[in-house]
């Protein structure tokens, strides 16, 4: 089985890593780039397929040269046999559509993978568009919100449990032919019920960690000519959407007016009750109630 996992670099939003300027804008230069946390689940799903059915896992990203380390992180933290970075200046400032076009061209250059995995939403863009749009170009069956996966290699089918409407309360099982495109949900859990699989998993984890130490030996970088793309259809030029402005969300006032009330002071408590009642009445009026 050959699987491809799409992954993107995002600012490390964890406390202590991320830095914002006075206006609340992200300072990219001061914030380290890490692998999009949700892509972990896509990688886990690919690793599960690798453990159960052998073959190879390719991890691909479109982005600046700095994404090499993001690919290394994918290889070290979960698993990868080889890494592909699609990168050049022409691709800069792509929206999700141009990104999807570029990625699908990269996937096609890899041949005909059995499954392509994407994560659910990035930590910065958060559109969740890139996977499905890339698949629109590839024209494979698409299964999203996948929480568990089972491949029948002989029959050439994939069975998946997925969240209906992204809701954990409602789970359906779907079946599709291979090749297929899978978007993993953050609820995805790999399953290894056989000792043999767990032993293979242990071997593969060790191998991938060792491989990641000299990941550049396993990395291929492609520019737009390598993937046969016209610069007009990628990057800024190929992006139909334009971000016209970005508005910071106003900060909540740090200090609010507060009156301290002694709970044993019944007169003062009556005032509180009154204030609450009138506030509730005001809300009801605003909502059109009577």
């Amino acid at each position, binding site marked *: 089985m050959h699987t491809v996992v799409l992954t993107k670099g995002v600012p490390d939003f964890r406390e202590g890593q991320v830095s914002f300027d006075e206006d609340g804008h992200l300072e990219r230069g001061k914030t380290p780039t890490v692998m999009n946390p949700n892509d972990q689940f896509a990688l886990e799903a690919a690793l599960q397929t690798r453990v159960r059915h052998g073959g190879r896992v390719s991890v691909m990203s479109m982005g600046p040269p700095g994404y090499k380390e993001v690919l290394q992180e994918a290889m070290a933290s979960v698993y990868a046999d080889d890494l592909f970075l699609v990168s050049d200046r022409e691709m800069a400032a792509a929206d999700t559509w141009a990104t999807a076009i570029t990625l699908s061209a990269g996937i096609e250059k890899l041949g005909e993978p059995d499954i392509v995995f994407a994560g659910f939403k990035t930590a910065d863009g958060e559109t969740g568009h890139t996977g499905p749009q890339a698949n629109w170009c590839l024209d494979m069956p698409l299964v999203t919100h996948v929480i568990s996966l089972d491949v029948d290699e002989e029959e050439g089918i994939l069975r998946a449990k997925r969240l209906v409407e992204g809701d954990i309360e409602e789970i359906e099982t779907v079946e599709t032919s291979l090749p297929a495109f899978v978007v993993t949900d953050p609820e995805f859990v790999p399953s290894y*019920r056989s*000792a*043999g699989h767990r032993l293979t998993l*242990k071997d593969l984890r060790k191998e991938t960690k060792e491989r990641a130490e000299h990941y550049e030996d396993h990395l291929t970088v492609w520019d737009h000519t390598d993937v046969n793309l016209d610069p007009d259809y990628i990057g800024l030029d190929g992006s139909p959407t334009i971000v016209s402005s970005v508005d910071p969300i106003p900060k909540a006032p740090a200090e609010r007016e507060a009156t301290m009330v002694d709970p044993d002071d019944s007169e003062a408590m009556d005032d509180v009750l009154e204030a609450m009642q009138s506030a509730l009445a005001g809300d009801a009026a605003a909502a059109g109630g009577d």
Partner: protein
Amino acid sequence: MTEYEHYEALVVGAGPGGAAAAATFANYGIETLVLERGVEAGSKNVSGGLIYAEESAPYTIDDLFPGFREEAAERPITTYRIHNIAGSKVESFDLTRLHEHDTEWSDAVLRRKMDSWLAERVHERTRETGGGLLTDVHVNGLLREDGKIVGVTTDELDPITADVIVAADGVNSELARDAGLMDWDEPEEWFQGVKAVVDMPADVIADRFDVGEDEGAAHLFSGDLFSGVRGGGFLYTNRESLSLGTVFHLDSLVAERAEPHELLDAMLTHPLLGQWLDEDYVEVEYSAKLVPDSKKVALREPHFGRLMVVGDAAGQMQAQGPIIKGMNHAVSAGALAAEAYAQAKSRNSPEDAGTLYAKKLKREGVMQKLRPQGYELMRGITERDSVTDLVDGVLTSSVGRFGIRALSGQLERLYNTPALSSMIPDTRTPYVTLPTVIAEELGTKIRETNDVSPPDLEARIENLTYDTDIGNPHITLLDNSFEASGAAVSACPVSAVDFGGGCYREEFVRTNGSEERVVSLDTQPCVECGTCAVVADTEWTHPRGGKGVEFNQG
């Protein structure tokens, strides 16, 4: 018949017994799968612990794992003393001779470090023969077909079959119980061990214990400091920490309603310990586990069909007087079981492996150490209450005291006699009365002060690492009446009377006007010691793989 995943050999548990069995199987080229419930081997295990390489043993740990002493152990023990205590009077004997008897070497160990080191080697070696070692897998029972044992079932994996199964799953072995070889009914058959690991830089250890870089000290404590509970305390030096703990007979602990952590504190704060511990006392881990008493429970035929039981699971834990030997016997037994299977198989009768293993235990002298004949013979007399009372009466009388004084020159030699120490009756005489009288008659008063203030139980629990299996408690109270299960309130090492944050609590419920005394259980702070499997009416299992407490020292 269902097709299951199959391995030639299956080893359950990656303590010293399991590691020795797996390494030996691998040496014979046998495909071996090892299943361990901890997140890492050693994360569930506790010992004192001094591991012995006995001269007379068929296998030692460094035979099977070259480099063990250099890479997995702490310090070799080069001085060994026992302290008889009465109040602040202490009479100390040098026990180095008993310690060195039949001993090639003996090193202090910490189990997380030791077992994880062993497991790495075991995995490498078993992987070469097509198997390997997996952690986070809890084996929950035996798989049977037509009434015969053919494999195991687990919480995490589909059932697995094997031609031979070695249960090296330690004390409270679920497999030995499932096979009907062990029950957990009698407190008399078990000890409870409680331990604290305390930080101490190497140069301070060198200074306070007068030991060089590759030397270490062992100290044992007995007498009147443990409120009359039968047992004793120990102190061993590691590279950069101390292991301090207590080992008590479980029946005695229950009878005295003693709180294990308070007995530990009684030792930690005794003036004698003031020379080694000060107010900078930093306890890095509190832990506990049951210890079988081989004299009573070592299985004479530790096998059933394809199943062979080794180590603590088979009760192979020898208390040679004050010296505790469990790990070394687990190693011998594990290796002998694997060897027995390999030999039986080469004679085309693998079904004889169990019988051959039991024979080897006898032939190699292991069984004689575990169940010494002297003890069996003497037990009928010396463990009668009337005899204990008589002996204690004499000892504490002026005649006995005179005797002790008269014997003063000989006592150290007697303590160092291996044959005597293996016959020690399981009564208060050797544990409490004798050391107390010795200290009273011959001891010197300790002038040292001890400024240690040990953490309370709440702080000790807080300091432990848990991955709680929420909504899936591994212990269920079958009878919550105080008569049936109340003993656990004090005997559980992480519970105490009047302490709300432990596992067991005493409660009063009103029903129809009458008040009933019951106990309630919360397994969250459980350290999986096994005590309440014996002293309370419970359905007791270990947690699922990787869940529950995780010891970082052991």
